[in-house]
């Protein structure tokens, strides 16, 4: 980058060329805020999280409160006699307010999604980083574990285990967490491998830094970007899995307002009261979409070269 003016030998004056560049932080922030998917996904996710936290405050009714006299009221936009603002999203076959169940359901999805993601993240990252950093036998063992895990059909195993051990929220979280760590391991392993051979890591080794120190101060900051992206993918994955499990009756137990369970319960009334599956399904769709958009956005902003 040139500074100051350039004069030719004859003294003819060529204009100054001073180049003023923004800092990396400013550039990243600018990219973030101009990335449509990131902003939308992040915003929607924040809204849903807020709903989950404020559920007890903003729910018009108790999600478990059955009022059989008020069963199967359609949502407010239907052209029907029974429609009322007391139940803007209608009621289900037990007379429970759908809006309240929807809002409380977000708690379940987010809780399970986040916890399972956390558990699988810890397992997968530990395995992946170890494999990527140490290589050799450790890598072989981890690869073997990953291949073994990938050889097992997740839904089937989850269903089988839950049916045998029992289905509580905790068990579902742990079963999922112990099953979906593979992508964490694979991605963290390859990222660590790439970072491992960078000059400053080798330099840290050369000056005698201890292994934990190298891992935490040199390697981790560089793989954090990928880690966050995979975390969003797996959180979405866990949410879908929980919904599927609950839909099949082997996830969260009724009368909890899990969205998957709501779909299952509404399935039999689908013909005349399609909103019973339409509303929770749409909620699931929006939540997953938001998380995916956020993850894509993070990946685009931090490492556009990984875009596909």
């Amino acid at each position, binding site marked *: 980058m040139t500074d100051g003016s350039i004069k030719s030998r004859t003294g003819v004056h060529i204009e100054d060329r001073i180049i003023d560049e923004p800092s990396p932080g400013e550039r990243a922030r600018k990219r973030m805020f101009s990335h449509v998917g990131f902003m939308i996904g992040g915003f929607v996710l924040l809204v849903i999280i807020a709903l989950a936290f404020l559920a007890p405050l903003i729910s018009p009714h108790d999600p478990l409160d059955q009022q059989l006299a008020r069963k199967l009221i359609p949502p407010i936009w239907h052209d029907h006699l029974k429609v009322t603002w007391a139940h803007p999203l209608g009621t289900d076959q037990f007379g429970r307010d759908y809006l309240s169940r929807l809002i409380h359901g977000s708690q379940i999805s987010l809780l399970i999604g986040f916890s399972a993601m956390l558990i699988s993240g810890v397992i997968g990252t530990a395995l992946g980083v170890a494999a990527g950093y140490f290589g050799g036998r450790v890598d072989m063992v981890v690869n073997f574990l990953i291949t073994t895990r990938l050889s097992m059909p997740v839904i*089937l195993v989850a269903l089988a285990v839950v049916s045998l051990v029992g289905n509580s929220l905790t068990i579902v979280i742990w079963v999922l967490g112990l099953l979906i760590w593979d992508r964490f391991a694979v991605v963290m392993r390859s990222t660590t491998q790439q970072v491992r051979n960078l000059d400053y890591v080798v330099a840290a080794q050369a000056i005698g830094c201890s292994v934990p120190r190298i891992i935490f101060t040199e390697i981790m900051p560089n793989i954090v970007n990928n880690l966050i992206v995979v975390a969003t993918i797996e959180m979405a994955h866990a949410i879908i899995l929980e919904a599927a499990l609950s839909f099949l009756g082997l996830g969260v137990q009724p009368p909890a307002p899990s969205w998957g369970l709501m779909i299952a319960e509404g399935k039999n009334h689908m013909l005349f009261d399609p909103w019973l599956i339409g509303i929770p399904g749409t909620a699931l*769709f929006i939540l997953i979409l938001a998380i995916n958009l956020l993850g894509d956005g993070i990946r685009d902003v931090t490492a556009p070269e990984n875009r596909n």
Partner: protein
Amino acid sequence: MLIYAVKRLSVAILVALTVSLLTFSMIYLSGDPAMALAGEAATQADIENIRRVYGYDQPIYVQYFDWLGNALKGNLGQSHYLNSPVSEVIFTRLPVTMILGASALSFGLLLAIPLGVLAAMRPNTLIDRFALGLAVIGQALPSFWFALIMIFFFGVALRWLPITGSDSWLNFVMPSIALGYYITPAVMRLTRAGMIEVLSSDYIRTARAKGLRPSIVLFKHALRNAIIPVVSLAAVQFGFMLGGSIVIETIFAINGLGQLAWESILRADLPMMQAIVLVLSCFYIILTLVADILNAFLDPRIRVS
């Protein structure tokens, strides 16, 4: 190439053995299997009886090797509920799932690959955004909900398609779509990314400079290279799809392996559950192996070394 295949095969066998071990140990997750089998009203004598009949009184490793030995001979035990050998039942139900899987795979690929190619040929245009949008939506749509929506519109509201059973090919349309679109987003993105990369490569420039026709450049030269990783991905995703068939089969009441798995889980028919998990896992392992070998075969750089 041969060495590569042999190495992969030995790893696959090892993995299969590990999976068999894990599957076998499933039976102990609910506590004492003899007690579970005997039921709540059983006496101690009943439980002991069951224990002896089913061999639960043997040391664990003996039980495992017995079970493994039998499995290798094709004997996966007796179903607790159906009163027939597990392998027989699985064998009868397997073809239906295979048909479903094959048609779902075809649908998924026929949608994904052309879209990916088109999107790569015209990046950032309408068709590209449409393809990417489809991928994004596809990844966010839970398959069981998608299936229900389709049932509502095509089965109930419009009455175009049957919603349960597995009699005619029409029964397989909606399930194939519901199951197949699961692989579309990933395959489409990979095809698109691969094509974009390949289309800007030097050998494509050479092909154009030779005056070859555009369709030849696109298919013979570009797609041939871009498709290599896609084949592996499709093979692996096919496996995941089969696992997910349990949900689709139960919704559409299709009499396949997934439905069988579901029934045996509901009835706690342990031998059946174990066997299905084992069979599916072995299938996955074979698929991954096939994917690896296909990958190596399609790329002359690996095949002819």
